[in-house]
């Protein structure tokens, strides 16, 4: 609650010009920003950096697959739009403070310290990103925003294979946090929450991780908990052109003006029935996914990056027609517009009453159009053989705000104007 000024250190370690806030083209932050400037560690992974908060788009949408991540969904308790504004301003200021690694002032021994202290006095560079999205419930009758709802945003409904737990679905606000380790993410979450206690009440959260391997062009850096490479054919977040085509809402899309530069965020908490999966034959697993488990290559091909060449396999002799990768991305002209930017992570939340491990994928996709993006892909996947081993238990549809381009401006400013 303290309004005390923070000590500003202004020590952005982000690579060169990419760190300059507000420039068009600052979208290609993240991966490339770090790669050019930050020295790589012994295992070939780039050293963590401070990613900039300010930019045309929110940084955490296109930064590289994080080693650690969490999503926290909140209900917003506010009596009017002014209170909502105050909350968004506080979130903006806190996100900026955290991402820039600004240390908090020392208030002396009589006060509670202003930060948790879990990262020491000077928070280290940690690839930290905080990204804010809002759910369809923000546009109900509470704040008079109904007319400003992104046209494709709605409250997630149950799909055929879902077993949704309503206590792990939806929410007014979704705070996405990612970084190089779980303690960094939890630190950020606690700082955000202590700042906003009067208005934000946790609804659900999920925490997780990605195994990161040294990056190679066209190779997925991560495997999911089914043991398969995940993200090989994902959009390259460092390509402004691809992001502009598939991820960012643009003028002329028929969306409200405030949404331009933002992105639809689909979140699905997908439980994997791992014991059952681990008992499935390797051949079955590979046919279900459509890839060789070890190499990640499409079935019948040599290399992970090889084209699956569906035209050469019209009857699915090599890669079954209902294989996951074939349904998800048929690689046809017509399905080009269905491409989405995936940025999910694996989670583990103990075990269920039956003694089975409770783990899976916190699926996240960003897209310019929810209908053309996630919903179209999901529609193709409906009934896929993989469904025997997975089920969605939570999540929701959100809209990630455009970026904040300068100090003093705040997330959601144009929405609330």
């Amino acid at each position, binding site marked *: 609650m303290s309004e005390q000024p923070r000590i500003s250190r202004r020590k952005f370690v982000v690579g060169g010009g990419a760190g300059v806030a507000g420039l068009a083209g600052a979208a290609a932050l993240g991966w490339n920003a770090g790669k050019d400037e930050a020295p790589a560690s012994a295992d070939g992974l780039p050293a963590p950096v401070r990613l900039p908060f300010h930019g045309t788009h929110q940084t955490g949408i296109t930064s590289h697959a994080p080693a650690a991540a969490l999503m926290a969904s909140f209900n917003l308790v506010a009596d009017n739009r002014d209170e909502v504004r105050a909350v968004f301003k506080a979130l903006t200021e806190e996100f900026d403070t955290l991402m820039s690694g600004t240390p908090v002032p020392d208030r002396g021994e009589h006060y509670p310290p202003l930060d948790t202290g879990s990262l020491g006095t000077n928070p280290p560079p940690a690839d930290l990103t905080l990204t804010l999205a809002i759910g369809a419930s923000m546009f109900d009758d509470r704040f008079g925003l109904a007319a400003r709802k992104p046209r494709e945003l709605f409250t997630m409904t149950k799909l055929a294979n879902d077993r949704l737990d309503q206590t792990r679905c939806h929410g007014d606000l979704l705070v996405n946090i990612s970084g190089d380790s779980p303690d960094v993410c939890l630190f950020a979450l606690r700082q955000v929450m202590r700042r906003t206690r*009067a208005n*934000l009440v946790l609804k659900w959260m999920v925490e997780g991780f990605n195994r990161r391997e040294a990056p190679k062009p066209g190779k997925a850096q991560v495997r999911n908990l089914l043991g398969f490479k995940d993200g090989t054919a994902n959009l390259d977040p460092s390509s402004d052109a691809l992001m502009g085509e598939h991820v960012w809402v643009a003028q002329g899309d028929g969306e409200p003006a405030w949404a331009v530069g933002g992105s639809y965020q689909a979140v699905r908490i997908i439980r994997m029935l791992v014991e059952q999966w681990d008992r499935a034959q390797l051949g079955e697993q590979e046919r279900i996914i459509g890839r060789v488990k070890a190499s990640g290559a499409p079935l019948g091909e040599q290399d992970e990056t090889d084209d699956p060449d569906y035209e050469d396999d019209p009857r699915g002799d090599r890669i079954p027609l209902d294989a996951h990768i074939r349904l998800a991305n048929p690689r046809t002209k017509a399905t080009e517009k269905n491409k989405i930017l995936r940025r999910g992570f694996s989670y583990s939340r103990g075990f269920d009453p039956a003694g089975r491990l409770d783990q899976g994928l916190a699926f996240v996709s960003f897209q310019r159009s929810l209908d053309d993006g996630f919903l179209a892909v999901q529609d193709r996947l409906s009934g896929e053989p993989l469904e025997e081993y997975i089920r969605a238990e939570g999540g929701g549809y959100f809209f990630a705000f455009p970026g904040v381009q300068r100090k003093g401006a705040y997330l959601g400013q144009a929405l609330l104007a």
Partner: protein
Amino acid sequence: MPSTTTRRLAAVAIAAGLLMAGCAKDDGSATRTDCSSGSSAAGGSSAAGGSSAAGGASADCGTGISKDDVAGSTDDPLVQKAVDGYQTYVEEQVNGLVTDTKVFTDAVRAGDVEAAKAAYPTSRQRWERIEPIAALIGDTDGAVDSRAEDGVKDTESPEVTGWHQLEYDLWVKGDIADSKDLADGLDDELQKLQAGLPDLKITPLAVAKGASELIEEVSEGKITGEEDRYSHTDLWDLNANVEGAKEATTLLQPAIKKADPDLAKKLDTAFVEADEALAPYKDGNGWKSYEDVSDSDRDALKAKFSALAEMLGDVPGALKLS
């Protein structure tokens, strides 16, 4: 989850510091170590065990508060006035608590289920107003206010004594024929609490922390409906927590106004808003069942009291209390 919450353990930890003004230990760091191990042992043990382990901690060791700090003196006459006022308040509440509870226990001993049910929430009011301070005396808290663990909440828990076991007998069992011993035990414990009053030395820090811990109580046990899980009279307790916190804060307000006028103003507003947030659930002279509070309304209460807890956390800093 042990019945005695960690927050309550923290309260007991203050207790240790407070009551051990004459404690022989003179090495502050050793004292801290002793106490934290006592608390964590309590946190991991069973309901009854948790309480008694915590009680043990309070009897044997200090906390982080050094001997000098707990002498309770203050240079600020406004703070001293608050401490004196709070000492009187606590004494009044404890004395009234013994009387109020006897109405409840008499009904139990008479076998009158309806009268006992009616007297249950009222008997707890004064306890809930001063609980963090009352918990400083002996092992009262564990003996009178323990709850069964979540896993066994639908079964009788013979190791649990005090209000919540009687609550179980009344609302779940619906039979209090064998509850007389529990009623007698509750009376005895509260009389012990009363007898311990002359030894209770309240420090400025305890007044401030007492207020914030009462609101922590709200955020922890009441807001979930866990405290009075059989009777659903949580709102009675919740309101009593707020009343107790408000009393302590009101007494400190002249000093806070001088030290940090902005914080003083925020606290005034926050307590008014807390009352407003609770107002819709008033029911005659009492409170509605907590089951009548919807999830979204519980969210609103959570937010309100979490914000208040954050503010109260700054009071010791503003007053430079240690």
